[in-house]
C-alpha cells in the first residue's frame, strides 16, 4: 500500500471512527438533545470546508462566495422536495433532491467560473464575494408557486403570482421556503462527507489533480508545459461548487425555514468556512474536516466562549498566516529549528506557492 492510499484511508478512518463513537453515544443516550442537533450542521460544514479547500488549497484561488453555491444547492433541492412532497416517496425523492442540488450548484459553478476564472488573486476573491451576494439577493426576490395550472413565477410579491385557490407558494421571496421535509440525518451527512472526501482526495492524486496543482504553483510554467489552464481551473471550481451544493442539500433538509439570509449565506458565513480551511491547513483536506468539526462544536458547547469566538478566531487567523507565511519568520524558523522543524499547529502538508 503506498503512502497516498494510506493517507486517504486514515482520513476515512477518522471520519468513520468519529461516526461510530458519536452514534454509540447517541444510542446509549449519552448525547444531549442540544448536541444531537449539532451533528448534521457539523457534517455539512465539514463538507463545505472540503469543497473550499479544493478551491483555495489545491486550485490556489481564494473564493469568498462559496456559501453562495451552498445557497443554490439548498434552494434548488428544497424547492424540488417541497414541490414533490406528496408525489414521490421519501427515498427516491431525497436522492433526486441531492442530484438536483449538486447539479444546479455545479451548473452555476461552471457558469460563474467562466468569467471568474479569467481573473486571479484579489480580483477573483472579490468577484466570488460579489457573486455570493448576487445569488443571495436574487434568491431573496424570487416568488414561485404551484397550482393546478402549473408553475408561477414572479419577482414582485407573492400576490403577483396570481394563483388558483388550490395554489401553494413554495418560494416566498425573502421568507424563503418553509417546511422542507427533514430528510437529512447524521448518517446521511457522514455518507455525503465520505463521498466528497473520496472525490476530492482521488482528484488530488490523479493526473488532473497534479495538473491543477501545477497551475497553482506556477500557471505560466504549467501553460508552457501544455496544461490546459482554463479547463483544469474550471474543473476544480465546478467540482468545488458541486460539493458545496451537496452541503446545501443537507442544510436545507435539516432546517424548517430556509431563507437566503446573511447569517447562513452572506460573505461572513463564507469567511467562517475560510477560517476552518486556514486553521485546518490550506491544502490539507483532512485538516479541514477536523478543523470544521472542532471549531463548529467548541463554541456551541462552551457557551462562554461563544461571545469571544470570532475574536479569537480572527486573532488565530492573523497569527497563523504571519507565522506560516512571513518570509522573515520562515527564515528565522529554519535557522533556529532546522528545515523541517516546527510546522504550524496542524502542520501544512503541501506548500501553496
Amino acid at each position: 500500500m503506498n503512502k497516498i492510499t494510506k493517507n486517504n484511508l486514515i482520513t476515512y478512518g477518522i471520519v468513520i471512527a468519529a461516526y461510530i463513537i458519536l452514534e454509540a453515544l447517541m444510542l446509549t443516550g449519552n448525547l444531549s438533545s442540544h448536541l444531537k442537533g449539532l451533528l448534521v450542521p457539523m457534517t455539512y460544514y465539514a463538507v463545505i470546508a472540503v469543497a473550499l479547500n479544493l478551491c483555495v488549497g489545491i486550485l490556489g484561488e481564494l473564493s469568498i462566495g462559496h456559501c453562495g453555491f451552498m445557497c443554490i444547492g439548498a434552494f434548488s433541492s428544497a424547492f424540488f422536495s417541497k414541490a414533490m412532497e406528496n408525489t414521490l416517496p421519501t427515498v427516491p425523492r431525497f436522492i433526486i433532491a441531492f442530484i438536483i442540488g449538486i447539479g444546479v450548484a455545479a451548473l452555476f459553478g461552471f457558469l460563474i467560473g467562466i468569467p471568474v476564472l479569467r481573473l486571479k488573486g484579489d480580483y477573483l476573491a472579490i468577484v466570488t464575494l460579489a457573486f455570493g451576494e448576487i445569488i443571495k439577493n436574487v434568491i431573496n426576490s424570487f416568488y414561485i408557486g404551484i397550482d393546478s395550472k402549473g408553475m408561477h413565477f414572479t419577482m414582485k410579491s407573492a400576490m403577483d403570482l396570481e394563483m388558483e385557490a388550490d395554489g401553494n407558494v413554495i418560494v416566498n421571496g425573502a421568507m424563503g421556503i418553509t417546511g422542507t421535509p427533514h430528510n437529512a440525518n447524521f448518517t446521511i451527512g457522514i455518507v455525503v462527507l465520505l463521498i466528497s472526501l473520496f472525490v476530492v482526495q482521488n482528484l488530488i492524486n490523479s493526473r488532473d489533480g497534479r495538473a491543477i496543482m501545477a497551475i497553482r504553483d506556477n500557471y505560466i510554467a504549467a501553460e508552457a508545459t501544455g496544461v490546459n489552464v482554463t479547463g483544469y481551473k474550471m474543473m476544480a471550481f465546478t467540482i468545488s461548487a458541486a460539493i458545496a451544493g451537496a452541503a446545501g442539500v443537507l442544510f436545507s433538509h435539516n432546517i424548517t425555514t430556509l431563507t437566503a439570509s446573511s447569517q447562513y449565506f452572506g460573505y461572513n458565513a463564507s469567511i467562517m468556512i475560510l477560517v476552518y480551511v486556514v486553521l485546518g491547513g490550506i491544502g490539507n483536506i483532512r485538516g479541514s474536516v477536523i478543523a470544521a468539526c472542532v471549531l463548529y462544536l467548541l463554541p456551541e458547547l462552551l457557551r462562554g466562549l461563544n461571545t469571544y469566538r470570532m475574536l479569537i478566531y480572527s486573532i488565530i487567523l492573523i497569527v497563523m498566516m504571519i507565522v506560516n507565511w512571513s518570509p522573515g519568520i520562515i527564515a528565522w524558523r529554519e535557522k533556529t529549528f532546522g528545515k523541517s522543524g516546527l510546522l504550524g499547529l496542524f502542520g501544512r502538508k503541501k506548500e501553496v506557492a
Partner: protein
Amino acid sequence: MSFLTYLINGLSLGSIYAIIALGYTMVYGIAKMLNFAHGDFIMVGCYIIFSVSAALSGNSVVGIIVAIVLCTLLGVTTEFVAYRPLRGAASPLAVLITAIGVSYLLENIALLIYGADIKSFSSVIKWEGFSFADGQLKIQGVTIVTIVVSVVILTVLQLFINKTKQGQAMLAASEDKGAAALMGINVNKTIALTFAIGSALAAVAGALLCSAYPSLSPYTGAMPGIKAFVAAVLGGIGSIPGAMIGGLVLGIVEILSKTYISSQLSDAIVFGILVVVLLVRPTGILGKKVQEKV
C-alpha cells in the same frame, strides 16, 4: 424633479464611495494588496466620532479630528503588525487572508465594546441645505458638504502625488519597489504613509457616511467598503481620478436602481457592474494595462 433628487442623492453616495475608493486604490496601487479591512476602518472612525461626541455633549468637530488621528494610527499599526511581515510572502493569498482576519478582528472588537444593536448617529453636519421650487427639490446640507469635501480631497491628493517629493516616491514605489529602493526611497515608509492617508480618508468617509445614513453597527463599514472596492476597480485600480469617477457612477447606479428597479436587487446590480467591468475592460475606465512577466 424627483429624478433630480435621486440623482443628487446618488452623487452624494457616490462621493462617499469615491473617498473610500481613494484609500483602496492608493493602497492597492502601492502595496499591491487588497486591504479588506479598509471598510472596517470606516466603522472604527464612526464609533470614535460617536463616542467622543457623546462624551463632549455633541461636539462633533473634536470627534472628527480624534477619529482621523486614531484611524491614521490604526492604519499604520495594522500595516506594521499584520501586513508588513507578509510582504514578499510566497503566496499572494497570505496577505489577503490576513486582511480578512483584521477585518473580522475589528468588527468583533466593536461588537464586544458597543454590542450588536444599531446606534443612531447624529449627523456631524447641522446645516439644513437648500430648497428649490417650493420645496419640491431639496438638497440637504450633508449632500453638499459630501460632494465639496470629496472634490477637495481629490484635488489635494492629485497635487500631493504629482507635486511633492513624497508623492513622487509613492508613484515610484507603485511602479517598481526594487528600483525605487535603489533610488534612495524608503519603500516601507512610503507604504506606511499610503496607509496613513488611506485610513485618514476612511475616517472622513465614515463621518460623511454616518451623517447621510445615520445608523451605526459593527458591520456598517463592510458593505460600503466592498462597494468602494468595486468603484476602484470600475475606475481603474491605482488611478486617483478613476476612483472618483468609479465612485460617482456606482453611487448613482445604486440609488437609481434602488428607486426604479428594486431595492432588493440593487446590490446585485452594483456587483453585476463589477463582473461586467472585469470581463469587458479589466483595467477599468482609467487604468493602465500591465503586461504579466514570467
